[in-house]
């Protein structure tokens, strides 16, 4: 079935089709229409799940953890301040090995208030032990939401589906809605195996672990995050096999023969496709690399895609004060493993902060600035700032 829907509706459809059993949620702009859509779905019998209308995002995540410990598939959605409030419980969900799925609509952090797109909220949850999957369009949002459950449950690690505020959350696109039975085939009912509060087989979970067992348990999270790279690849393939749409953790577009690559995530990647095509029409050897997963970080694929290029322009709609763009930092840390001959120069641009547009024009400007510059230090990395 094809339907025109917003990114937020696509998230709700994804969760519903995935057969979520417990939803716990709290409203926050621009996420709210996800949980409103789910409320309608439940009321109209389209989705059969329990819906806990909690009193905060902290409680939303806590209730999801409780439900997941009860052995059922759980979902919540939030953004910006809500994700920050959840932070404690994001760590808890990963530590407790509860495969909760969360949709985060990227929203800029306050103060001052800003409800528009900015990835700083999700990227600053880097160390929480969550798988993070970024989306470029609404079809990808729906598909990723379904896949996120499968990935999370295989690994017993929570997963975050990330989409840009307004550019996706409130923008409508025609998308293909998978058949519910086919989704069930792809994603059978959740089996918590031995990690749940089974009254017939009582166990204590989360008790104090002394230093040595604690370190073992933390290592297991790292081990499974490493394993996640192959699990995500397998789930992408399974999904493609079932539904005919293939996703990649790292995807090149006109990248093979490119001299200068633009690296983008989220909706900026979508705009960059158009920009790169325009640059090609102008005779430039421009290319795009889109990164979908932030955690686990797909270092090898990124190395493979960027190796041997002269220059790479990373566009970050986020930044870490005192250290600049977060994707650029991660990419630099991966590329340092390449030899000097193979390693491209990384230009880290900050653009689109607080919902500023990253237009085709801006991406082309970034490309030409990178092409003409000798060294990254020479140029201004903040795109569009007037320094008033």
């Amino acid at each position, binding site marked *: 079935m094809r339907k025109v829907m917003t990114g937020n509706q696509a998230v709700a459809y994804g969760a519903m089709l995935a057969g979520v*059993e417990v939803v716990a949620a709290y409203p926050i702009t621009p996420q709210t229409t996800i949980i409103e859509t789910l409320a309608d779905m439940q009321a109209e019998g389209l989705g059969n799940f329990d819906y806990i209308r909690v009193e905060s995002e902290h409680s939303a995540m806590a*209730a999801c953890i*409780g439900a997941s410990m*009860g052995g*059922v598939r*759980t979902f919540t959605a939030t953004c910006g301040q809500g994700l920050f409030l959840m932070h404690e419980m994001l760590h808890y969900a990963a530590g407790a090995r509860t495969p909760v799925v969360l949709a985060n609509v990227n929203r800029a952090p306050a103060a001052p208030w800003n409800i528009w797109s900015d990835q700083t909220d999700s990227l600053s949850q880097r160390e929480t032990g969550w798988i993070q999957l970024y989306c470029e369009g609404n079809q990808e949002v729906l598909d990723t939401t379904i896949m996120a459950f499968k990935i999370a449950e295989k690994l017993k690690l929570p997963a975050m589906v990330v989409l840009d505020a307004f550019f996706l959350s409130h923008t409508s696109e025609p998308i293909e809605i998978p058949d519910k039975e086919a989704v069930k085939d792809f994603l059978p009912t959740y089996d918590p195996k031995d990690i749940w509060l089974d009254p017939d087989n*009582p166990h204590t979970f*989360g*008790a104090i672990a002394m230093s040595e067992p604690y370190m073992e348990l933390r290592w297991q999270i790292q081990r499974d995050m490493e394993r996640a790279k192959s699990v995500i690849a397998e789930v992408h393939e399974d999904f493609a096999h079932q539904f005919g749409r293939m996703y990649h953790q790292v995807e090149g577009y006109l990248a093979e023969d490119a001299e200068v690559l633009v690296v983008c995530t989220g909706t900026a990647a979508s705009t960059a496709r158009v920009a790169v095509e325009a640059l090609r029409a102008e005779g430039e050897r421009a290319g795009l690399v889109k990164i979908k997963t932030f955690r686990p970080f797909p270092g090898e694929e990124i190395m493979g895609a960027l190796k041997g290029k002269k220059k790479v322009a990373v566009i970050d709609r986020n930044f870490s004060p005192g250290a600049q763009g977060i994707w650029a930092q991660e990419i630099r840390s991966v590329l340092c493993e390449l030899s000097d001959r193979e390693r491209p120069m990384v230009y880290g641009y900050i653009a689109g902060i607080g919902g500023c547009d990253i237009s085709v024009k801006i991406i082309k400007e970034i490309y030409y600035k990178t092409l003409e510059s000798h060294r990254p230090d020479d140029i201004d990395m903040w795109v569009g700032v007037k320094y008033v």
Partner: protein
Amino acid sequence: MYSLNQRFDNMEIPEDEYMTAGHVACAGCGASLSMRLALKGLGKPTALVVPACCWGIIPGAWPQTAMEVPFFNTAFMTTGAVISGLKAAYRRRGMEDVCVVGWAGDGGTYDIGIQALSGAAERNEDVIYVCYDNEAYMNTGVQRSGGTPLGAWTSTTPVKAPKSESKKDMDEIMIAHRIPYLATATAAYPHDLIAKFKKARSMKGMRYIHILSVCPPGWKTPENMSIEIMRLAVLSNIFPLYEVENSEIFRQTVIPDEVEPVNNYLRSQGRFKHLTQEDIQVYQREVTTRFERLKERFDRIAA
């Protein structure tokens, strides 16, 4: 000494144990005894959710546990939310009969956990929430909480500046949520405590049980006096034992024949050692006033 204002369906304390020996509570701990008795009243199937508090430690360190019911340790402020989610999951699995119990200290109830608890109460979640109240942050070394009584020493309200505010009236806050059942209990009256847990288990919706729980190191009391001190709290109306249904029907379940002056209770504990006679008079007035207000509601129902 006192009379029991209720009939117990079984005066025998059940012999079933859901807690094994070998837990790590302090000698004379009111919290460990309260849990033991509460589980006797609840029986199986029951699942426990416990935030940061002494009870996070009492079952023992991983991989050992003294618990024979499923037990989930959660973050400090989340008990009300986690039990809501867990109950929903059991409902989804067709395991409606599992009694989901949140078990939090006074810090996790009066202070950091009040929001999640209030949310769960407002939604009338089908769970039991227990506050075992030892009147300070005992697990971190006796710091003041909203449940600490007036005049008490704690490590953050030293003798030269003891707590200048009264104990927060958490029971009234919960009554204002109009929940199906609320009760106070203490291990000094085990039949009363067990009967209340049995009754709570037989009901639906949010049930809140407030247990006064002596802490010998925190209250500075001898370990062998725990039961007597908790009994004195009841007999002096500092901690009246009662139950409330739907915020309407109030019943005192243990009625002292003769009310003891608060002096005996306060003088039994090192944490109140610095109080002057004048301080004790102030304390007495506060206890009497609070009880009178409660008594009006007991009487209204009796009449």
